[in-house]
């Protein structure tokens, strides 16, 4: 298996189709990163909120 393009410039330009190809891959990358980050962020938020809630509750029960 060899690299198809003769230079990095060719790889970037893709005989004029570069903008279409790279735009497609860039948008897909952004969407995939957002998808992957969503559950990780949501769990971190949940743990933070619940911990605050639990510590409030334990404070109240001490009083």
């Amino acid at each position, binding site marked *: 298996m060899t690299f*198809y393009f003769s230079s990095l410039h060719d790889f970037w330009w893709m005989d004029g189709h570069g903008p*279409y190809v790279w*735009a*497609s891959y860039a948008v897909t990358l952004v969407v*995939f990163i957002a998808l992957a980050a969503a559950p990780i962020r949501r769990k971190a938020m949940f743990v933070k909120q619940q*911990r605050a809630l639990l510590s409030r509750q334990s404070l109240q029960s001490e009083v």
Partner: protein
Amino acid sequence: MAWQWFHRLGSPKWFYEKTASWAKVLGGLALVMLSVGVVWGLGFTPAELKQGNSYRIIYIHVPAAAVAMAGYYVMALSGAIGLIWRMKLSFMVMKMAAPIGAALTFVALFTGAVWGKPTWGAYWVWDARITSMLILLFLYLGVIALQEAYQNQDSADKICAILALVGMVNVPIIYKSVDWWFTLHQPATLKLMEKSSIAPEMAYPLIFMILAVYVFFAWLLLARTRVEVLHREAKTQWVKDIVLGEK
């Protein structure tokens, strides 16, 4: 005895504990496979005879579209299992599948539009394949909107499951649209039963990317469902233990 695993699978706590290592493996595998597949498709395959290099969009367009359609079955069948066996976990899977499916449908439509410009001369045409794919996006968005519309989670789950099941009729229509109607969209490139209309050096990375997006979908669905389990079980002691045990 034989059905014990099925009922256990319905137990959120059991599910959460058993899937921890699966989530890590699938996440890592998805990252590696997607990276390899993208590099392979972009740089190590020949250009297409008629379409030139624009065809390289196929390595994300077809996998995204295929998994968006398969994901709809996952969502609808999870809804059906939830309705029939009253399994809460199944409803959670249904709810969590909708945003992933919507995002993948968007990717398929967007990359298709960008590919359409150099190939057909237009970003958008109202033909059968593209229109039925747009309907798929609206079905996914409908499920997401319905989930938000109900205060009561049980009602939301049931209504969404019914909408998802009714909308299932659209998936075979998308699949068959290129054969049933006259369309600009090219017919299926990969075929299971007959000879594919694509050269092997382009087919292998395409099949690889389809598998990669499947693994990515599986990981996302698992990771999202695990967090949804925590949310819905927030009042139980085992979730409190997890919350306090997290670093």
